């Protein structure tokens, strides 16, 4: 009798632990979704500024094409190719900033770009940390054994090159 009670107690504790763990993981996934959504909105804003710059009167047709194409690539890229596509846009913007006199003629969009770049760095750091925590947790035996992650896709990191910015 007492051994039965013991088994019951342990299985109750175990079930509690499973729901507790599933809750934790659910929360972590939500964290990743939030950090990604915020990162995404900053990237969208950046692409919009890039298009704005592309349509300035002083921009030559070749640069216009490069910027528009890079911004378009960044917009249509899937989540796993996103970082690479955004790097292309970063490169194009950086080139324009360093090699042309457009930033002197039109400082406003570039000032906003600088501000955005700072926020972007922070957003990436926060997203990376959220992804790392989630992936770490999901790799634990109990989570894989009991499929606590359900059908949620494994979050992907965003290996944005800091120095391109």
């Amino acid at each position, binding site marked *: 009798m007492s051994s039965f009670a013991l088994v019951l107690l342990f299985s109750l504790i175990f079930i509690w632990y499973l*729901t*507790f763990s599933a809750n*934790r993981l659910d*929360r*972590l996934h939500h*964290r990743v979704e939030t950090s990604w959504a915020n990162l995404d909105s900053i990237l969208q804003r950046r692409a919009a500024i890039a298009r704005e710059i592309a349509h300035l009167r002083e921009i030559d047709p070749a640069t216009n094409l490069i910027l528009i194409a890079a911004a378009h690539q960044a917009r249509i890229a899937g989540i796993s190719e996103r970082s690479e596509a955004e790097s292309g846009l970063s490169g194009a913007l950086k080139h324009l900033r360093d090699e042309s006199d457009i930033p002197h003629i039109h400082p406003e969009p570039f000032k906003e770009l600088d501000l955005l770049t700072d926020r972007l760095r922070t957003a990436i750091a926060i997203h990376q*940390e959220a992804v*790392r925590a989630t992936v770490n947790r999901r790799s634990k035996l109990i989570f894989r054994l009991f499929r606590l992650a359900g059908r949620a896709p494994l979050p992907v990191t965003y290996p944005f090159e800091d120095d391109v910015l």
Partner: protein
Amino acid sequence: MKIGMVSPYAWDVPGGVQAHIKDLAHYFQGAGHEVSVLAPALDEASVSEDFVVTAGRPVAIPFNGAVARVLFGPVAATRVRQWIHKNDFDVLHLHEPAIPSLSLLACSIAEGPMVGTFHVAAPRQKVAFAIAPLLEPVIEKLRARIAVSEVARETLTIHLDTDAVVIPNGITVDFFASAEPKAEWTKVLTIGFLGRFDEPRKGLELLLRALPGIAKSIPSARILIAGPGEGLELMQSVPPNLRNRLEFLGRLSEEEKAVFLRSIDIYVAPNTGGESFGIILAEAMAAGAAIVASDLPAFLNVLGSGRYGLTFRNEDASDLERQIIRLGQDANLREELRGRAREGARRFDWSEVGPEVMNIYHLARAASERVQVGSEPRSWLRFLTRDEG
């Protein structure tokens, strides 16, 4: 935006974390946001700020070389729940959530957009983080973490295996820059020290060991010691003929502190460790004091690796003596350091730091998300009833 902040330490006890929360709250209020702070208090009647909600009396425990007053328990938990429920915050900012006090409690109770700021730097003090495995499920609820310095960030990485964004503590630069110097302190070369001087890690003992050498090279030098503490025992270590060089000022108010930092020629920070940020150095910089500080990583960071002040080898009294004499005898060097320091201090002004913190709030939140009281126990009940049904 509606912001809730939680202090782990008693509001009516002076401390760096409390001061930081207060300034941050004032900054956000000034910027048009709504702020409510939940904090323990020794005497609830003594809390005068209308944005502070008290959560009960804390208990004293020794921590990180000082006494920390913290609060935990079912009564505090109820207050946290009521406070969160009543306020419907957009974001909850928890200060020092790894310390078993009110912030950790709030972090475990609340669900939603939460940001944590880690102030402490204790790379070697394992015991403070012995409960790390228990903390993990709670700390991972934070959407974003802020460390006040690289040292604090390292502490976090080592003990809690999590990364953080570094945002320094803020100061009101103009408050210090515009204080009126006190005439009687500017006549001779005055060296200032500020802190709880009977705590060994504040390093006053080093400064006193350097005093005979300083007095020999700069006969007119005086040392002003500000801050709470018992000075009699320390005085025993000073040769009797030099005792008149020291003056104890006792605890200073914020206004007195600004006047003090504005008046002195050299500010000395001989701290031997346990410093996470060194806000006092940023304040001394803003006030335009020439600085000599120990070469702790946190201090080097604030001082721009020596650009805004001189440093000496930690715990080396003779090196401290050399640096003070060097600075004391060279008015040009003092002037040069002062000028650079005043500029450098702008980096720590709330007008720089505040927007950075606000940016973190935005990044921690999904659109139209609110902070709620956690529903874990209820979901567990739902799970049970569904099972039986």
